[in-house]
C-alpha cells in the first residue's frame, strides 16, 4: 500500500497517530467496539407485527429500508428486507431488552461480530470514494441513510450521521485490520488521524 503503512504488517492494527503530510488534517478515524449490537430479523410473515411491537414496547420506528433511526438509546439500521442491526449507545444486555419482540423476530447477539469505525472531517467523502461504490452526495445519501456494501473487498454496513461529514462503519471483526489499512492507504493523501476510543 502506501508508504504510510510500510512499517505495519497486515496482521497488526496500525498504531494510533497521524498519517500523511504534516499539518494537514482532512479526516479523522475513531475505532470502537460497539457497546451492544444485535440483529433483529422478522420471522416469516411477522414484519408488520414486529414493527407494531417494536414501536409499542421499545418506542422504535423500524423503517423497512436502508436507514438509521434512533430512539431510547438504540439505533436501528436497515440491513435487508425485514432485517435491522440494533446498536445500543451504552453497554447493556441487548438481547434481553429486545426479548419482548421474540414472538415476531429472531434476535441474534452480534456485539462481538463487528468493530466500528467512525469517520469525520472535510475530506471524508474523498477517502470513502476510494472504496465505496455508492453515491454519497448529500442529495443521494442524506444523514440517516445507510447501506450494506463491499469496500475494498470487505463487507460493511454504514450510515451517515447528522452533521456535515460523519459516517459510521460496522466491519466484521476479522477484517478490522484490513479495513484500517484501506482507510489509511486511502486517507494519507488528505492527512488522516487514526485513533482507538480510549
Amino acid at each position, binding site marked *: 500500500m502506501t508508504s504510510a503503512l510500510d512499517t505495519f504488517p497486515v496482521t497488526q492494527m496500525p498504531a494510533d497517530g497521524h498519517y500523511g503530510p504534516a499539518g494537514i488534517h482532512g479526516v479523522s478515524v475513531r475505532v470502537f467496539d460497539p457497546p451492544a449490537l444485535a440483529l433483529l430479523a*422478522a420471522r*416469516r*410473515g*411477522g*414484519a408488520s407485527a414486529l414493527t407494531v411491537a417494536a414501536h409499542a414496547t421499545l418506542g422504535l420506528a423500524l423503517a423497512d*429500508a*436502508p436507514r438509521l433511526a434512533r430512539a431510547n438509546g438504540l439505533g436501528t439500521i436497515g*440491513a*435487508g*428486507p*425485514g*432485517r435491522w442491526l440494533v446498536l445500543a449507545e451504552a453497554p447493556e444486555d441487548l438481547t434481553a431488552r429486545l426479548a419482548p419482540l421474540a414472538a415476531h423476530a429472531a434476535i441474534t447477539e452480534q456485539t462481538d461480530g463487528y468493530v466500528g469505525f467512525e469517520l469525520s472531517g472535510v475530506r471524508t467523502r474523498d477517502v470513502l470514494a476510494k472504496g465505496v*461504490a*455508492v453515491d454519497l452526495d448529500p442529495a443521494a445519501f442524506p444523514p440517516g441513510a445507510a*447501506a*450494506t*456494501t*463491499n469496500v475494498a473487498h470487505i*463487507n460493511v454496513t454504514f450510515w451517515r450521521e447528522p452533521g456535515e461529514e460523519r459516517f459510521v462503519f460496522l466491519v466484521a471483526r476479522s477484517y478490522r485490520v484490513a479495513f484500517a489499512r484501506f482507510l489509511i492507504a486511502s486517507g494519507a493523501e488528505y492527512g488522516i488521524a487514526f485513533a482507538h476510543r480510549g
Partner: protein
Amino acid sequence: MRIPCPYCGARDASEFAYLGDATLTRPDPAAPDADEAFHAYVYLRDNPAGAHSEWWYHSGGCRRWVKVARDTTSHAIAGAELAGGAR
C-alpha cells in the same frame, strides 16, 4: 454494470453472485417422472439472445436473491424484484 437492487438501490454487479435462469421451478420429487424432471431442472438451459429472467444473489448487500430482467445482448436491465415476496 449496475444492478438495481429493490432494497439497496443500484449497485455494482461485483456485489452480486450470478445463478442463472429464474423461470425454473424445482420439480416435485415425488412425481413418477422426477428423474427426468430433475435432469432438466439441473442441466438443461436455454441461451436466449435478448430478454432473460435470472437470479442474482446480493451477497455484498441485503443478502437477498433478486430476480433481474436483463437483455443478454445489451446488458440493459428492465427491472428487478426480490425473491419470496415480503417477509
